[in-house]
């Protein structure tokens, strides 16, 4: 009996320590945006919305969120479209060297990371005139995400039934029509997964935009956030806390949506 009680006490103590460890760093993000004069200390907020007003007036805050949106949606669209086409072709047609190609893609995507490739990517962007180009950044980010996306989608396409495509072909549909009207509706959950995965990846990416975009008006929220707390002088905590919160909310909403709809089981691959 005492052993049982001790076990219970031990269990809840551990859970309490865990909760504290994971909650304490986050408390500030929840309280400071609603506090009129926030310090680094976590305090009970006085529920003011002045800080959100201040964000509206900041010249780069809201535009940077728009830039983040532009970069992540642009990359997601490109990655979904190109990986769907490639994955479909690789799934249905035995191109010569297909298996070696898929293996090489998977290997490449895991070894060529932002850290390993930052020097040549920076050089490449300089040579191609892609510094300060959001389109260039979208292309570079897409190139990094495509191998894993093709790999995940190919698995998905392999497991969809082919009988619909056969019947569409019997009725005289062209291959492109079959892909657009038969295959895409069938694999929509897979496409949605890739889109969410790509958006999440780009939304949080700091290194690539930090390297390749020097114009503040083009920089996404990740870079503006970093600039806000590292630039000289006293950090503006009202701005930082509120901006951090606004920047985080979409990620949390997306997570809630995905976990509600599919159950959050990404199993690797979500982060690189």
């Amino acid at each position, binding site marked *: 009996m005492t052993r049982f009680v001790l076990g219970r006490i031990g269990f809840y103590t551990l*859970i309490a320590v865990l909760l504290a460890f994971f909650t304490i760093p986050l408390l500030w993000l929840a309280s400071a945006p609603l506090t009129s004069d926030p310090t680094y200390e976590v305090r009970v907020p006085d529920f003011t919305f002045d800080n959100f007003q201040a964000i509206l007036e900041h010249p780069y805050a809201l535009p940077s969120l728009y830039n983040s949106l532009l970069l992540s949606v642009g990359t997601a669209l490109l990655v979904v479209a190109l990986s769907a086409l490639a994955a479909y072709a*690789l799934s249905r047609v035995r191109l010569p060297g297909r298996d070696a190609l898929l293996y090489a893609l998977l290997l*490449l995507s895991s070894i060529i990371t932002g850290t390993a490739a930052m020097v040549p990517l920076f050089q490449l962007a300089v040579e191609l005139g892609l510094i300060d180009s959001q389109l260039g950044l979208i292309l570079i980010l897409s190139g990094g995400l495509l191998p894993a996306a093709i790999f995940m989608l190919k698995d998905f396409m392999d*497991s969809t039934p082919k009988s619909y495509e056969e019947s569409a072909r019997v009725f005289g549909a062209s291959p492109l029509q079959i892909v657009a009207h038969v295959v895409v509706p069938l694999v929509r959950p897979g496409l949605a997964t890739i889109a969410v995965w790509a958006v999440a990846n780009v939304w949080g990416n*700091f290194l690539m935009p930090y390297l390749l975009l020097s114009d503040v008006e083009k920089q996404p929220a990740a870079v503006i956030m970093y600039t806000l707390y590292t630039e000289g002088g006293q950090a503006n905590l009202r701005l930082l806390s509120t901006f951090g919160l606004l920047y985080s909310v979409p990620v949390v909403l997306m997570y809630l949506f995905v976990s509600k709809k599919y159950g959050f089981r990404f*199993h690797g691959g979500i982060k690189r």
Partner: protein
Amino acid sequence: MAQATSPPDLTRETAEPTARRYSVDAAGLGRWRAGAFAAPALLLITVFLVFPALWVLYLGLTDYRLTGTAAADPKVVGLDNFLSALGEPTFWNSTWLTVQFVLGSAVIGQVGLGFAIAWLLRDKRGPLKRIVEGLVILAWILPSAVVSFLWVALLDADGGTLNALLGTGDYAWLLDHPMLSIIVFNTWRGTAFSMMLYGAALGNVPPSHLESARLAGASGWQQLRDVVFPHIKGHILTNLLLISLWTFNDFTPFMITAGGPDGKSEVLAVHVYKVALQSGQLGYGAAVSTVILLINLVVAVFYLRLLRSKK
């Protein structure tokens, strides 16, 4: 839905090998059109992923610089960059710090804590489990720029929450213990992945095996060692390789300590940035990148072999 229809498909294909080609290429793409479908993706991958990887190998052999005469007219210097890296204490310092970072925050921190949480909550249901898991996952999904600043605020010497909680006055954690700070931070940041993986793995351990071990009087540790570990060995190895790879390539420490003070938390990822893009020694930075690529290659090949052997 897909699962329900594929088995009959398979049996038909094996029974009638001539029908196979037609049923696989159901839309009648043919090789040329299939190639055209795959081409745009492969082009982007080639230009922005494969080419940079090859170029980094070449750049590492040159004296390329961001500015100055070597910027206009770079010369091939052979293995000089690699040799000077080997003789450079800052390179070894960064390598050693990276080893500490990967071992401390990934292998010990994330795997240990992730497994501990999954084990503690293995047969729990209800709100407690959801709250703990939700918070751990929240730390993982928030943008790295935001969580980095949250930790800068937490550890701040002047009024940071940690000092207030511990009553340590104005102790400057980031200046006095920069490595410890980023190791604890990265444990906090990345535990979710290991927790979810072990949660799924523990669900596959047959309850009857645990039950009989319990009836035979096995203690908690004995159950873990003799029943659970043999079942999840594969998961542990997969998990170790993946998070080591991610942690090794993680640039987030830069946003917390920027490698400082005095290079005391300058892991290799930050080191490359500092030598190549801040000091402008692109050639030398590329040589260090090559080392990173090679280490990634070893880990990734090992991981893919493991995946294949499982299939």
